């Protein structure tokens, strides 16, 4: 079943002569439980695609359907709520709230949603991501790898249908990177989640189920990884 589908997705920055087409009529689907790696050179439109798929930006043209719902028909408020319930984000620079502890950061999307926190689930997440002993620490007291694991836990906290990761290990050294990625993979397998991840690292890409390559705002290859 397709969990995510984009139709004719385009994004143009600026207008007139200085306009830049960051994304050109991209059609793209992701199946439930799939791990898709998006690769491409710098400026190829990877991040734009991810932002549009995740409902962070509005496309110039085209649609994004998540669970068959056209997310850009939603109002700003509903889109926000949709994001916090259905989508998880992991950024390169973690983007944790500095005044909140690790655990508070993880539960923030739930709190914003006014939901009761499933402590067992959160503890399990913390254990899975091996940050249980750091849960009361502030981000400033955590290492980069730990911060990213907190960010992963935050993305998983609401049990979203799909997770978008924008070079989640771009800021980490290779040893930590593989550790974090392993944990990410374990987590999404464990909780049956779908993952769309941008990466520069071919080795990382090869661990995905499928690799999509972008160039000049277009998908130039879409290959299933044979393991």
């Amino acid at each position, binding site marked *: 079943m397709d969990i995510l589908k984009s139709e004719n997705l385009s994004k143009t920055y600026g207008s007139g002569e200085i306009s830049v087409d960051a994304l050109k009529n991209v059609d793209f689907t992701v199946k439930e439980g799939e791990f898709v790696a998006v690769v491409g050179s710098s400026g190829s439109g990877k991040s734009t695609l991810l932002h549009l798929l995740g409902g962070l930006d509005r496309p110039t043209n085209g649609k994004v359907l998540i669970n068959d719902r056209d997310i850009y028909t939603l109002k700003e*408020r509903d889109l926000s*709520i949709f994001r916090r319930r259905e989508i998880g984000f992991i950024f390169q620079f973690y*983007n944790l709230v500095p*005044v909140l502890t690790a655990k508070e950061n993880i539960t923030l999307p739930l709190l*914003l949603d006014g939901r009761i926190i499933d402590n067992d689930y959160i503890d399990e997440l913390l254990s899975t991501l091996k940050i249980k002993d750091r849960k009361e620490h502030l981000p400033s007291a955590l290492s980069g790898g730990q911060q990213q694991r907190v960010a992963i836990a935050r993305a998983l906290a609401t049990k979203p249908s799909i997770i978008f990761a924008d070079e989640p290990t771009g800021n980490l050294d290779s040893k930590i990177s593989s550790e974090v990625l392993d944990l990410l993979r374990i987590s999404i397998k464990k909780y049956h989640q779908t993952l769309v991840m941008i990466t520069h690292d071919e080795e990382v890409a090869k661990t995905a189920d499928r690799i999509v390559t972008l160039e000049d705002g277009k998908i130039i290859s879409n290959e299933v990884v044979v393991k």
Partner: protein
Amino acid sequence: MRKYNGLTFKYLKKQKQRTALTLLGIILSVALITSIGIFGESIKHGMVQQVLDLKGKYHGTFDNLDDKEISILKKHTKVKNVGIQTPLGGYRREDSSLTISIEGWDKNLIDMIGRSLLKGRWPRDNNEIVLERWLLEQLEIEPRIGNKFTWKYDMTYIDEEGKWNNYESEAEFTLVGIMKDSPGGKATGSSLSLVSINTVKNLLPKALLNKNAFFWVNDTYSIKDTLDELQSSLKIDDDNVRVNYELLNILGENDKVNFPIIFLIAIVLIATIGAIYNIFHISVMERIKEFGTLRSIGTTPKQIKKMLFTEGFFLSVISIPVGILVGFIFSKLLISNLSIVNNVANEVVVSFKVIITSSIVGLLAVFISIYNPARLASKVSPIEAMGNDSAVLKEGTTKKRKWHSLLNSLFGVTGKMAYQNLWRNKKRSVVTIFSMTLGCILFIVFSFINSSADFDNILDDHLHGDYSIMVNRGMEKYSVKDLESINNIEGIKEVKAIKFRGFGFNLMFNEENVNSDFLKYFKEEILKFPHYNQKKKNGQYLLESDVFGYDDKTLSKIDKYLEKGNIDIKRMKEKPLALFINSRVDPGYRVGDKIKFNVSLFDSDDGKYIRDKEIELEIGGILNFYPINMGIYSMGPGIVLHEDMFKDILEIDGYSRFDISIEPKIIREKIENKLEGITNKIPGGTFVDYEKEKKLLQKQKRQIKIMVISLIIVIGLIGFFNIVNTITTNLIIRTREFGMLRAIGITNKQLKKMVRLEGMFYGIVSAFWGSILGTILSFILYLLFKQEATYMKWNTPWISILGVCVGTIIVGVLATFIPLKRISSMNIVESIRNVE
């Protein structure tokens, strides 16, 4: 960009909004200092003008100079002007209680004192005289130039053996001019008549001739130093030096330090520097990342400091002159539109001093403010600054769990985050709260000044209703019938009747029952007068005192003068219970002490002496001033009795003074005619109309209020800009964080709530500290001012506190509007990339 410094200007140009806010902040702060300076100078100028008008343009006088000394004084380079006065003596007429002194003045002195003619000319030839207009009326002398009359005059002097003597003579004078009344002359019953110096020389024996020199020190020299220098070079005794203290006090040429004013200025300065500091601090914080970048490409800490100082200098060069101009326009608008007269300034005085001070303070404030942020910026580690998003400087979090759960239940997670955000960068928050707190403090302190100056009270202190009728000395009194007829005039609201005796009422004391200060004063200042030498009775010294008899109405209204004890009107009516007023030196009496007086009794009809009697009075209370007086004082203390007790002791039925209040909207002229009729029943009786003075005081009251309120508005504006500036920056810095929050699904509503709560918390915390500190400071100010301004009152300033709380919260929330609009309209992707 040719030099790296060019970056500064590029930054200023790019961040237009921020630059504008910074400029505005400095402009307002400098404007505040300037306008306070201009107000101060203008008020001082007005007061100096008033003293000059009242007392004349002289810094001091040397008495008993010979011609040689006078010529030295006149030629002295440090002395600008010298005027000569030689007294001829006093003129008394039996049918009047007026004090008239006849003096020879030279033209210089007439100009310095500022007397002016209504008619005729100044005396030139022998026996020519110029009188004040009111005196001519009072003595019923025909106001015709050329009118001749004979006056007796007398002069008291110490002869070669050191004994007091009286010289008496008479002469025929020719009226050659009529001059304007001297201020207060009529009310106190004293008048000045002028003759030429030659007239005095001719009329007085040479030994009695006294020349006194009034002088004005050249503006470029210190008055006090010059005075001392002249005194020592001319070898003049201290006794013969009189300093125009009223003028010198206003000019600040005295040793007294004006703590309240210094305190007030200090608060304003701290607030101003605080505001400017805040602006720069946050402006640097905002650019920490940029500085990190610069550091990483090899900029030295020194270069970064230099860049920031260049920025500060550049901003100062623009904003300080504008600030001074704004301050000038502001004070000019206020002062000239209000045409504040008397006591307060009537023209705008802009001295170089004010401009220089404001510039220096502004510049200093900017540089002090830059110093610390510059140090911080230059210390930033490149990696730290670049790598981190907003938590560049170590951001700690205080763990106040108690608050958290409370806030959580009150405002939800957004409230909790808002509160925690407040403390994420302690330094920044402290600076923000500090500046808001200063705004609150200034507001409370100035509101206190505004409300504490209870002008009705001052009015009451100076005026005693609408009119007064007084008779000054001697046995003359207004009768009970006179009081009745005043009370019967239509439109009279209230009459306060005062009994008074200024002689024949002597305090009796031993050396043992007064303190040493008083004894010293008595022996040095009083015993030298001839008629005191013999005055001793039963081994006790006698000291002439003033005794008043107040009615119930008056007694019930003099609480504010009470220093110790109480005013028990009922007991005062029946028992010899008195209120004691220290006149010059406190003899050390306490409430409950019994003191003796020697009372001379006279026949109320023919004024003949009957006998002396001794009485004992118990001190029921001690007053710090004469609530109602007769304009002249004895050397001794004042005693206030109930009118009934006064009558029992002194056997006097009549009244010396009536203070009359009238109903509003009554035709004054009718009443005035009747009152004047009653006044004139007794020769020497004086009728005083307070209408003009009252109007003047009311006008002043309004004007001072407007002035203080305007200052409060400026202070409020500075505070507002400061807060908007700080909160805007605080939020803009965190754009990326807000982007992330939106990415993980915070709705705009939630975001707005969080940010507004943050603004509100700033307001609450600042209002809390501002209220406490403002209250304490206003109390300190009250303590400092109290001595000089007895009318001041202090209450916990609840209204100001309420105003501060509501104000800061509203301002705190309002301040979030602009940045919120910017943040929520910003594309999430852009926010996350944190492009500024």
